């Protein structure tokens, strides 16, 4: 959007003024017999000239606008085509339009443009209460969604599930999850009942939505929903959404040069496919897997044909990097010791950290999140350590390491090299 999509800023061209002037001068050469008529003519001509000048200016402005719009679109087209290595040269962009298609009529717009916006725009007039809603719902919806919107079999549940969103299997219903009431009205009106979409009257839809709100304990049984009070209804989870924050949280971390060798000490199978044969030849249920994780082999870095093992690599570390790490380690010294005779303080002693199972220093009492990582067999790799040092609480939520994180990326690399130089 940075490419100034406000393409329609008027460009008042010098051309416009020039055109107006030329018109005025040539008009005047028409002359007249008497001074009087001459004066009248001059007045008329001036008026004409002014009008023509204004018209010419508008025309020129319009032309300039169209041209700049055309150029902007051509640029977008070319950029898009180049970026995507199109199989065709970019489609040309003409000045003006192709004059294809026809004007949409009012009735046609009314028939198709029925979506409802979160602020209630698009709602037709109408009303319906919980009681009526129950009747309609039981008749038209309950066969799939249950009498109380609780869902039948595999069909969607429309009510309940409050306080489950943080669970492993969150129950996402109109009540527990949907942030806008307009969504329910709009979806039911256009897409339900399944197999008979588009047959509900506005009043029926208002009544059904009122009933679904009631089934979710969001309104009382005497509630009536209408286009007038629609936007007053508060949805339970209206604050439950954030706009995609992967760029800040994830991309920043995952745009790093990945490890190629000795990336882990050992690798074991921790879980095997639940369903072995998903679609058996003869049809029917998927076949479950009865193999267990213990059946698998263990892979270890030393088994590999790679020449250097983790400890050999230590010897190849850059001494200047280690020296820089020693300096950066000052911010850790209040809590950690490292080297010969290092003991546990506020934090554990940090010898032999790389390749070591997380939270495995003897005699140190780790936080729960560290103990979990330990049980899961997670190991400190340069990557995981870098992520942890950059943002301890972000990567290990609940850690006892109350340290804001290392700000400079260069310091992190240096610290890792420094720690790598201390064997267990």
């Amino acid at each position, binding site marked *: 959007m940075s490419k100034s999509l406000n393409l329609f800023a008027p460009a008042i061209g010098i051309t416009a003024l020039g055109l107006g002037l030329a018109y005025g001068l040539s008009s005047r050469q028409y002359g007249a017999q008497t001074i009087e008529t001459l004066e009248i003519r001059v007045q008329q001509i001036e008026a004409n000239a002014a009008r023509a000048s204004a018209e010419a200016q508008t025309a020129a402005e319009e032309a300039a606008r169209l041209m700049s719009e055309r150029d902007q679109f051509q640029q977008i087209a070319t950029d898009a085509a180049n970026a995507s290595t199109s199989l065709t040269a970019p*489609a040309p962009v003409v000045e003006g339009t192709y004059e294809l298609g026809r004007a949409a009529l009012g009735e046609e717009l009314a028939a198709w443009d029925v979506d409802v916006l979160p602020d209630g725009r698009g709602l037709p007039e109408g009303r319906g209460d919980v009681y009526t809603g129950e009747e309609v719902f039981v008749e038209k919806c309950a066969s799939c969604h249950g009498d109380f919107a609780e869902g039948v079999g595999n069909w969607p549940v429309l009510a309940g599930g409050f306080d489950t969103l943080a669970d492993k299997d969150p129950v996402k219903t109109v009540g527990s999850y949907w942030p806008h009431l307009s969504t329910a009205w709009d979806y039911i009106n256009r897409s339900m009942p*399944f197999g008979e*979409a588009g047959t509900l009257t506005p009043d029926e839809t208002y009544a059904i939505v009122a009933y679904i709100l009631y089934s979710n304990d969001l309104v009382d049984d005497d509630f009536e929903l209408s286009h007038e009070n629609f936007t007053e209804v508060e949805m339970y989870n209206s604050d439950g959404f954030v706009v995609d924050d*992967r760029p800040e949280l994830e991309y920043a971390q995952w745009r790093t040069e990945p490890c190629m060798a000795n990336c882990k000490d050992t690798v074991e199978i*921790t879980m095997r496919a*639940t369903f*072995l044969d998903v679609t058996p030849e003869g049809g029917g249920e998927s076949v479950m897997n009865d193999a267990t994780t213990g059946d698998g082999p263990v892979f270890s870095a030393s088994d590999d044909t790679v020449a250097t093992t983790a400890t050999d690599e230590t010897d190849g570390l850059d001494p200047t990097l280690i020296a820089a790490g020693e300096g950066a380690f000052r911010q850790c010294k209040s809590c950690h010791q490292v080297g010969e005779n290092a003991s546990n303080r506020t934090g554990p002693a940090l010898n032999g950290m790389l390749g070591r199972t997380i939270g495995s220093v003897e005699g140190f009492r780790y936080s729960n999140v560290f103990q979990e990582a330990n049980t899961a067999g997670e190991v400190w790799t340069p990557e995981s350590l870098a992520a942890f040092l950059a943002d301890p609480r972000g990567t290990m939520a609940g850690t006892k390491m109350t340290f804001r994180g290392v700000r400079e990326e260069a310091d992190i690399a240096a610290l890792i090299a420094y720690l790598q130089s201390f064997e267990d």
Partner: protein
Amino acid sequence: MDEFFKPSRRAFLRSGAAIAAGTVAGGAAAQGTPDPKITELQDWASYTGAGVDETPYGLPIKFESDVVRRNVEWLTASPISSINFTPIHALDGTITPQGCAFERHHSGAIELSKEDYRLMINGLVDRPLIFSYADLERFPRENHVYFCECAANTGMEWAGAQLNGAQFTHGMIHNMEYTGVPLRTLLREAGLEAAGDLSDKWVYVEGADASSNGRSIPMEKALDDVLVAFKANGEALRMEHGYPVRLVVPGWEGNMWVKWLRRVEVTDMAVQSREETSKYTDVYENGIARKWTWVMDAKSVITSPSPQMPITHGAGPLVISGLAWSGHGQITRVDVSKDGGITWETARLGKQGDTKALTRFYLDTEWDGSPMLLQSRAIDETGYVQPTKDQLREMRGENAVYHNNCIQTWFVNEEGIAENVEVS
């Protein structure tokens, strides 16, 4: 490893074993016994074959009849609102033939003829318009190859290794060459002056089927590379992919690629439709959900060997083959590990150049017959490195359904049998 050979497992592998036996026979012939397929006159070398026109529209030869889309019945309530999977394990190259490209419908695939087709452009435009199918073919058109991935692809695997086969874990993807008109051309035809500043505007796109699947797309994307497509891989779209006209939204989740496109409305806010609130939002550990997670991040999977594609030839030359893609642009590198991520080798990429399209990769290697933990890791032009399952879980928890782009592991045992596993 005896656990491995339960009867169900055997049944599943019978076809694989047969292929293996065939290969062995071929090998034996080379060691002295003449091969009757060569020494004896074969029917096909003597009798005539099928005449032209026997099948006016050709189908794959009968020997390939198992290379088909497959549905996992218990995943959804009804095949009308359901999903099936592309047999990516059995395909090569990058283009997905339409006939086996996955389907996802919310209320079934509809038969809509070109004659009955109408496309409305309305909302904040200067001239609300109706286009016929024939009108669309009169605008300048372009050809582009793009992948279309369902946001729920690999969604089953959040909680752990589940389905045994690349088709089931990664088959909600296809890659086609589209012919269509840039959406910006149509928007410009209707005129965007009425929309004023475009930087905070949206288009709401809607399909003609009963689900009336509708999604809001920011104007910046709508004017960038979105296509209104009517051909795929050179021929008309298939019914199940939106014949006669679908939207192509490169790099963004498949749900936005509205099929049977019937309306494009310029709006001043997101509609917050059911498909962008109740569905296609990602709940994280703390119960807060991310919305507008449109881009499909970089991802890859080894398609062979994989559970449905065991190694049947024993030790020796082995081609490890797979697919990589990124909604952010081009794939620049793919690394493959045979030991569960301890050591990585960079794979050979197929044709470079297409952005937001599938890239084929190969690792041409020697298999020594020992077990392998196969993984692939994609890197895209932004430097984003495909994360491990653990990295994703640490970041998002396990409640999410969509956008699982983790590194996949296949365990290949000494027999060449592959299984979906998770590793430490």
